[in-house]
């Protein structure tokens, strides 16, 4: 190691008080201004366009629309619950060593993922053409009466969702280390207990973000149930504009409600993710507002804090 002469060293150290100028991100500012300008143009165009905003306001809380909204939410939640239940059952079947259950689960995924949802909705709704009546021995009835638009929508959307959920749940289960299962079995837990107490809760961490997407997709797909006369949000707005011809206004009402519901559920999903992420201490929450502003104004994005490791007792 060569040492600098005392004079150079002193000169370098003496210069410590200079002002530091951080890098200015001019490019970011220019891009932000351009995008905002374009956005303003778009908003102006719609404000000035031939849209009767009073009609939008008037029908926003109309009883028909609200009933449609409630039906949309109800069918989406019920179909999702059915989808999750089917997904867990078929995922376990798909991963079983029993070749029969395995193949049946494969067949289920193949059919319900391979055909359009709209077609499946029509299939369920028209089931009476194949089975005019049901006879359960102790009870019988006509299929036309049983297969209401509600039931057809529930089965169509739920069973279709189940096929996707099967693959999502299976991916989640596979993401959990095999050692977790072994540790649980070693403690004397049954296969069912191991799955429900150890594996699935950990799989949820992987499943939930994807499941959130699925739910949003399902919520929007539920609009297809309009075709089989289920009185959900889109059908409700159609019913109104068939009468008053305010097509665009009522579609805006429906779109606004879809956005509101999706936003509310997205926030719910965030809390759910935090719950199932417990024990994962490196998942530190940074509010999006802070993250957003920091990328514009600071040179470094705010990094989540590193996990805290307490090592005071580590000495042998």
């Amino acid at each position, binding site marked *: 190691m060569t040492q600098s002469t005392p004079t150079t060293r002193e000169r370098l150290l003496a210069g410590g008080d200079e002002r530091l100028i951080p890098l200015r991100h001019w490019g970011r500012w220019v891009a932000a201004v351009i995008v905002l300008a374009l956005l303003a143009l778009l908003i102006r165009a719609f404000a000035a366009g031939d849209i009767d905003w009073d009609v939008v306001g008037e029908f926003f809380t109309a009883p028909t629309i609200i009933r449609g909204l409630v039906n949309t939410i109800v069918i989406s939640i019920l179909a999702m619950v059915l989808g999750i239940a089917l997904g867990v059952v078929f995922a376990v079947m798909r991963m079983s060593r029993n070749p029969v259950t395995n193949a049946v689960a494969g067949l289920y995924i193949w059919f319900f993922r391979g055909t359009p949802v709209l077609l499946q909705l029509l299939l369920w709704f028209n089931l009476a053409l194949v089975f005019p009546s049901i006879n359960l021995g102790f009870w019988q009835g006509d299929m036309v009466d049983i297969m209401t638009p509600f039931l057809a929508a529930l089965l169509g959307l739920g069973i279709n969702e189940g096929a996707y959920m099967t693959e999502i749940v299976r991916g989640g289960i596979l993401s959990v280390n095999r050692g977790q299962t072994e540790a649980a079995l070693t403690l004397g837990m049954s296969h069912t207990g191991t799955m429900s107490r150890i594996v699935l809760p950990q799989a949820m961490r992987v499943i939930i973000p994807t499941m959130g997407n699925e739910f949003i997709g399902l919520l929007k797909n539920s609009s297809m149930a309009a075709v089989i006369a289920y009185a959900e949000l889109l059908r409700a707005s159609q019913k109104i504009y068939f009468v008053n011809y305010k097509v665009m206004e009522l579609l805006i009402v429906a779109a606004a409600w879809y956005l509101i519901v999706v936003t509310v559920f997205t926030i719910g999903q965030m809390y759910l993710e935090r719950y199932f992420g417990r*024990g994962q201490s490196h998942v530190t929450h940074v509010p999006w507002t802070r993250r957003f502003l920091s990328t514009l104004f600071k040179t470094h994005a705010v990094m989540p804090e590193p996990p805290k490791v307490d090592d005071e007792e580590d000495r042998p």
Partner: protein
Amino acid sequence: MTPVPMLLADGVRKSYGDNEVLCGIDLEVTPGEVMCLLGPSGSGKSTFLRCINRLERIDGGRLWVDGERVGYRRHKGALHEMTDRQLCRFRTQTAMVFQHFNLFPHMTVLGNVTIGPVKVKREPKAEAVTRAHELLDRVGLGEKATAYPRQLSGGQQQRVAIARALAMRPKLMLFDEPTSALDPELVGEVLAVMKDLGDSGMTMVVVTHEVGFAREAADTVVFMDGGVVVEAGSPDRVLGSPQHERTRAFLSKVPV
């Protein structure tokens, strides 16, 4: 009458496809004994350990834990393979500590230690919690009951895993390379807990690379290679004056 051996193996064989991992293992562990299994990787030590609590099925030979055939029940003069439920009950007699701890990351330390007694043995929760605190004190982690595994060092996690195993009041404890995944400075604290456990009379089978621990804590040292027991005996004999060339070659390569 001699006491029932805690573990008895008679010609245990196990293969994966064409690869024979265990080629006839004969061993006996008496109650209170600490046995260390040494040997190069791939010699079948871990596989043998996993056969004892039937995480793996054996392809030949016989295994008994405390006089009970592993994986089978005697009924009307025949041996029936255990059902899932019977196997669960059987597994509560042995406990296992893993190389990678395998603590449940979504539960606190207390949750990890109480889940076995509460959910499997159906003990009252309050009782299990009291005992969990005692066990955590015993492994020196009384303060960490509310922490999550991620917040602990490797050595602390492994000591929690030992407490979790002890909570089931096992007759026989199996250790599968418990210190192999630890940073060198954390090995000592785990070995100290294990030594303590052996001194208190727990029957233990330990797969390890820590020759020092084997010398100090084991009653019997078994050297395995290529799926067979090469030699077995007291630590002084097997480690001090090994009879076989393979044992000598192995011992010359591992740090003592």
